[in-house]
């Protein structure tokens, strides 16, 4: 399906552009925090002298420029060369440093996959990978849309995979990544990043799923920015007398199957796994297989990106079209109940 502007059929709606939300995935009026990854890394690096930053011509677009400004002599610009970037990260980690390495998720997951697989994961190097534009957070089309990064990194032995929801969480993920011994892949939200989970008294723990709100009719199991959407959807569904719980699963691997299975065991709830990722190989299928193995069989639905090359266009348009906007989620849930 090709993108359309919508102006011909809906003249009353403002015309959205591809550049909308390029710097931030925050909705208008939403509380945000600037560059939580870059700022948290700077804070951590003041005491962790083993930390260095590396990027492949995307420092400004991954918030690593904040680190570069503060610690110019600990920052390595590797040019627009992702294979070199990850190979060199392995080498510098072998010498005892802890590199935080950034690029776009598409380039890490697709172009440099073998380099990450062989020089970092197989050798179990202490490399921390933080990648911007995960899932559908760019309107540039498939070249920039990493719809499959979780599937690829989940399949890589030794790799820990984290999909944080907001600025509050990213600030906590950064030191947790550094404390963990071994390679980690984190989906990075950059720029003005929404602030949501602080309202829930949330604390990130590596490998732990957390129930953010309870509800008797629906259980959202979600990660990343789809947790934010699930929380919004849960609030709106109250108007329809639908009580929705939200279980946030930021660590995709290792998966907290115990907490997930227990939450899904509760009788009478529709389980909806929601993720900013293709429905193939991500959180949805991971949860489904965990439930099958545990012989827990609730009514089950997936919200995620379709198995197709996604269109270019404005993110709000695309999120609506592919079913991951709050409105689309509410509509889907109501249709399933």
């Amino acid at each position: 399906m090709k993108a359309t502007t919508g102006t011909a059929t809906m003249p009353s709606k403002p015309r959205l552009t591809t550049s909308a939300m390029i710097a931030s995935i925050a909705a208008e009026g939403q509380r945000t925090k600037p560059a939580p990854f870059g700022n948290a890394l700077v804070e951590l690096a003041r005491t962790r002298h083993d930390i260095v930053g590396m990027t492949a011509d995307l420092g400004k677009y991954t918030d690593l420029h904040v680190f570069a400004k503060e610690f110019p002599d600990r920052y390595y610009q590797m040019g627009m060369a992702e294979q070199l970037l990850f190979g060199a990260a392995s080498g510098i980690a072998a010498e005892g440093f802890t590199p935080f390495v950034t690029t776009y998720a598409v380039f890490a997951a697709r172009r440099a996959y073998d380099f990450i697989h062989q020089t970092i994961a197989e050798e179990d190097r202490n490399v921390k990978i933080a990648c911007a534009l995960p899932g559908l957070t760019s309107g540039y089309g498939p070249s920039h849309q990493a719809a499959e990064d979780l599937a690829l990194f989940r399949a890589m032995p030794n790799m820990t995979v984290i999909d944080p929801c907001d600025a509050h969480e990213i600030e906590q993920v950064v030191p947790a990544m550094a404390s963990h011994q071994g390679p980690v892949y984190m989906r990075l939200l950059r720029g003005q990043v929404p602030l949501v989970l602080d309202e829930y008294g949330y604390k990130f723990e590596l490998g732990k799923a957390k129930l953010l709100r309870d509800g008797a009719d629906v259980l959202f199991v979600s990660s990343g920015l789809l947790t934010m959407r699930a929380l919004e959807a849960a609030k709106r569904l109250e108007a329809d007398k639908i009580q929705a719980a939200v279980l946030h699963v930021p660590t995709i691997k290792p998966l907290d199957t115990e907490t997930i299975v227990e939450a899904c065991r509760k009788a009478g709830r529709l389980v909806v796994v929601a993720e900013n990722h293709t429905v193939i190989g991500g959180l949805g299928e991971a949860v489904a297989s965990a439930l099958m193995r545990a012989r827990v069989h609730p009514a089950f639905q997936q919200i995620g990106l379709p198995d197709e090359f996604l269109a270019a266009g404005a993110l709000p348009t695309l999120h609506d079209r592919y079913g991951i906007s709050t409105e689309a989620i509410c509509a889907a849930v109501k249709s399933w109940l």
Partner: protein
Amino acid sequence: MAGADLRTNEPTLAERAYRVRRNALRMGEVQGQGYIAQALDIADVLAVAYFHAMRYRPEEPTWEERDRFLLSNGHYAIALYAALIEAGIIPEAELESYGFDESRLPMSGMASYTPGMEMSGGSLGLGLSIAVGMCLGLKRKGSSSRVYTLFSDGELDEGSKWEAMMSAAHYGLDNLIAIVDVNNQQADGPSTQMMGFEPLAEKVRAFGWFVQRIDGNDLDAVVAAFDAAKKHEDAKPRMIIADTLMGKGVPFLEARERNHFMRVDQHEWQLALQALDEGRRA
């Protein structure tokens, strides 16, 4: 002692190279196969690296002050094991396990299996990028250790090699010594015909490297090249391009039709060892 330096009583480099070849042939015989033609061609380079140029402690393979050796072309593992055995890092008896289940000596080199193996090769094109990172790390630590990395001419087809070459010059990595084995043979045929890489020295010089091209089976030339690479004063990465002869040291293998994976029949391993010994006596 035959093949010993009269002043130090240490084996000569020629004797070391002979023993590296012998260890490799013995492993080939154990497994019935192996990248033996490459092992024989690179034995002189490895002898000079391990018994003339590099700093290391056999009893402490992860000694912090050691020079690092990254084998990018993982299928040359048989050659590196042969050198590591001669260096005393791997016990000689272990060569009997080459390529068998549970062995520390798998046919393609991996860091997690073998003492002295600093990277997991096999997927060609990785080593120079890792070397760049190690060199940056060593400089950060103020270490005087060097990083040596060996790769083959076929690997030059991989774009990552050229990414790494650009960055090594950009960062002035004078602690990096890359060795290219030009035996002009890769999987599908002669390397120069698969993808032309010449004039290699001129290309790499233009990338900002200090480059030497030598006969990689002339021990004196190899020693001189390693010495010059270490002594060179410019803040440039160093490359030694070593033209080598596959099967070197075993005349009937030198003459055999060139192939990436040279076939050696079971009865020929002993003949090869005999031919090697005859060459040593001569």
